[in-house]
């Protein structure tokens, strides 16, 4: 057996032991083999990228390293010495820190309380808190990681919550920092800022492991990169010696088209007209502040923006289910007829009858009932449809036939409509939702984060379907935090910030840099260089998702 170090060639020949080394790690969850005989060595003072499809086992591997899961087999060496990481306490003591894909913060605790949780000095809180306050101040200055220590976490934007997670690790004096998909929730500027911090940490001699689905980030920041597929480590290479195309192929096991192939749009009559849409939520916070939008048949309007700037509210209102207790005003017309924004007639079922399809932002919470079989999910939301019903009863046979056909056309794997939704991988779950909504042929399709956390192979397929629907003359509203996706799919791009549309651009005539500024609420975008972030000083003080 070769060690992971060998695969990397060069560096492992040096005398210094790897900061961290995994040997033959295996882990199964019940019948799912999440990690199979994985070996990996990460040299000290480097940034190591890990990529792989959804469910390839990246998070599992890192969680094992952090003592969150116990491996079934294998060995871990830190600084060349084998250690047994039985729980996170051991990992922390060994100098490992981890920022999880799904943050592990206590939502109603303050930043300070979250920071000291588990590493309090002594039985009383007061001394720990005041010590932490001091350290936090120092760390904030050193790494430009400002957060208000007394703010309650649930009031922070996701970006700031992530800062808290990083500060947590730094407060624990981590030498090895693991970040699991940290940029999924950040603006380009925030991501840039994060990368600067990571580079700084590396230059201090810390070791960083970075998981991401974005090949651009891998190429930009990592020294080495490892690729996982179906629980196995298929390659570890020097970043400088590879290319995005090669990585994508390693990941999926076949050639992948990284760009969307589409013809120019041929927009027709307007389908959706939104005028002066405002929304004040139950707590009295104004989430939408006068939105005006038009979407014509046969075009895709992309809405870019950091999550939490009102996109969710916009989708929910258009989808017919504004948040409980919210006050919505303004006008929404669909094919010329006004849609009710409150009271009876304003419900998701009615919207569907009016011709609105909706791929929700969160497939697991909204789009699917995870415990329902795939066939039941294919009727979800459309369960009133006449073809699914026989008098009082639901026509389950018809639904199953329909489900089987859709799964066939959308290549959902495994092709078993009796399987519960939770037993499909993320990409296939998303395909079920996309199939259900697109195949109804809606006049207007609302799409929220169509490919969030979905791997490259599935993204390619889903993008094709969206474009096909547009070409069939339907109107599409696409909300995504992925600028690349927005730019690739949209015919027009609107940027949302703090409940407002900051501006509209044509994809061909803008850059990620310009959009990034708009996403941060800066409308003066005259002298922005292509693809660049914003000037350093301002990055820290990006406004939170909502003020």
């Amino acid at each position, binding site marked *: 057996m070769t060690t992971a170090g060998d695969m990397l060639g060069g560096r492992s020949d040096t005398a210094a032991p790897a900061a961290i080394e995994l040997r033959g790690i295996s882990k199964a969850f019940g019948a799912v083999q999440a990690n199979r005989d994985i070996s990996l060595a990460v040299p000290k003072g480097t940034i190591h990228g890990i990529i792989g499809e959804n469910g390839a086992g990246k998070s599992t591997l890192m969680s094992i390293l952090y003592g969150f899961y116990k491996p079934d087999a294998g060995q871990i060496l830190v600084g060349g010495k084998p250690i047994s990481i039985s729980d996170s306490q*051991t990992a922390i003591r060994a100098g490992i820190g981890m920022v999880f894909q799904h943050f592990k913060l206590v939502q109603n605790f303050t930043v300070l309380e979250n920071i000291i949780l588990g590493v309090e000095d002594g039985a009383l809180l007061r001394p*720990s808190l005041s010590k932490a306050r001091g350290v936090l101040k120092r760390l904030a200055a050193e790494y430009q990681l400002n957060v208000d220590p007394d703010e309650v976490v649930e009031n922070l934007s996701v970006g700031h919550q992530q800062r808290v997670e990083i500060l947590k690790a730094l407060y624990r004096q981590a030498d090895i920092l693991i970040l699991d998909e940290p940029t999924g929730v950040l603006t380009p500027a925030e991501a840039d800022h994060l990368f600067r911090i990571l580079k700084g940490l590396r230059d201090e001699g810390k070791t960083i492991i970075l998981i991401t689905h974005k090949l651009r980030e891998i190429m930009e920041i990592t020294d080495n990169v490892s690729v996982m597929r179906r629980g196995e480590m298929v390659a570890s290479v020097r970043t400088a010696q590879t290319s995005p195309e090669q990585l994508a192929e390693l990941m999926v096991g076949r050639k992948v088209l990284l760009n969307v192939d589409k013809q120019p749009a041929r927009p027709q009559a307007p389908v959706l007209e939104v005028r002066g849409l405002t929304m004040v939520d139950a707590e009295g916070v104004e989430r939408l502040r006068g939105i005006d939008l038009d979407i014509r048949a046969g075009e895709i309007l992309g809405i870019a923006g950091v999550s939490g700037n009102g996109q969710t509210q916009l989708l929910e209102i258009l989808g017919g289910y504004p948040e409980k207790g919210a006050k919505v005003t303004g006008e929404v017309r669909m094919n010329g007829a006004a849609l009710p924004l409150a009271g009876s007639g304003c419900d998701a079922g009615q919207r569907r009858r009016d011709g609105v399809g909706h791929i929700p932002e969160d497939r697991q919470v909204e789009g699917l009932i995870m415990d329902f079989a795939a066939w039941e999910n294919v009727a979800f939301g459309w369960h009133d449809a006449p073809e699914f019903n026989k008098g009082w009863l639901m026509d389950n046979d018809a639904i199953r036939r329909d489900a089987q056909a859709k799964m066939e056309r959308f290549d959902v794997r495994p092709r078993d409509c009796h399987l519960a939704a939770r037993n499909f991988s993320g990409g296939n779950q998303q395909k079920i939702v996309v199939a259900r909504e697109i195949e109804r042929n809606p006049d207007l399709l609302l799409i929220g984060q169509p490919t969030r956390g979905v791997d490259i192979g599935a993204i390619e397929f889903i993008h094709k379907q969206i474009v096909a629907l547009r070409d069939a003359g339907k109107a599409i509203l696409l909300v995504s935090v992925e600028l690349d996706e927005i730019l690739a799919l949209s015919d027009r791009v609107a940027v949302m910030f703090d409940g407002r549309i900051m501006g509209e651009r044509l994809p061909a005539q803008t850059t990620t840099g310009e959009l990034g500024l708009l996403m941060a609420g800066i409308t003066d975008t005259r002298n922005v260089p292509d693809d660049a972030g914003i000037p350093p000083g301002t990055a820290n003080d990006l406004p939170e998702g909502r003020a």
Partner: protein
Amino acid sequence: MTPLLLACLAGLYSERAGVFDIGLEGKMLMAAFTAASVAYITGSAWLGLAAGIAGSLALSLVHGLASITFMGNQLISGVAINFLASGLTVLVGQNAFGLGGRTPALTGAGRFNPITLPGAEALRDVPVLGPIYSGLISGQTILVYVAFALVPITWWVLYRTRFGLRLRAVGENPASVDTAGVSVTRLRYTAVAIAGVLCGIAGAYLATGLSAGFVKEMTAGRGFIALAALIFAKWRPWQALFATFLFGLLEAIANLYPNLDLGIITVPSMFMNALPYILTVVILAGFVGRAIPPRAGGEPYVKER
């Protein structure tokens, strides 16, 4: 209201740690029984108290096993514990004392007797404060003082100590505690055990303080009222004191006016008896609004599906 307060605080510890506990009733009942039995056999209320705590703790352990170790349904476990206590107390009691589940009456040192606080007699004649001090504050059993002292103590533990921080965290997001290197299991067991101890004191107080022995089903729904008070208090210690005080007050009013004569109609005693329950519903509906329980409450912490 003392047993109510103790049970309410017991529920507070458990539920703040994310373990719902509708078995408060059963634990109190079991404690009342073991306390009365041991106090009768040994003639010592203190040994009775210890036995009460032990009895309640045993059921807490069952609850912990079901809801923490085996990740079972916490509500079902609570229901089962209530049944278990209701059956076992009588079964064992009948077997031991042959009185149909009653324990023989306790006398003397077998009970907790009121203590007169220093100066109570002297101050009796001071206007206003005198009667309050000597009549209300002085002359309670030691367990009452314990219960009331537990309110600030609980507050302090919860908000000022490391243990409290972790306890609250584990009820909100156990994964955060786990990834901080602290054992979720141990924390939750501790919380459930504290709940056991407090229910134990409550039950012992019922049987050896407020009355002189055990009678079957003697908790008579107090565990459920404590639960309602806990929700009313939104899982906070001072509010728990206030909530139990309110329930005590409602009951006292119902006791004072068994048939409320409103001039036109006389409210029959049945309704005055049900008044605390009716008002609970009204309060839950009107004043407390949505009481948001600890976020991880009721859910076992499952790491690997």
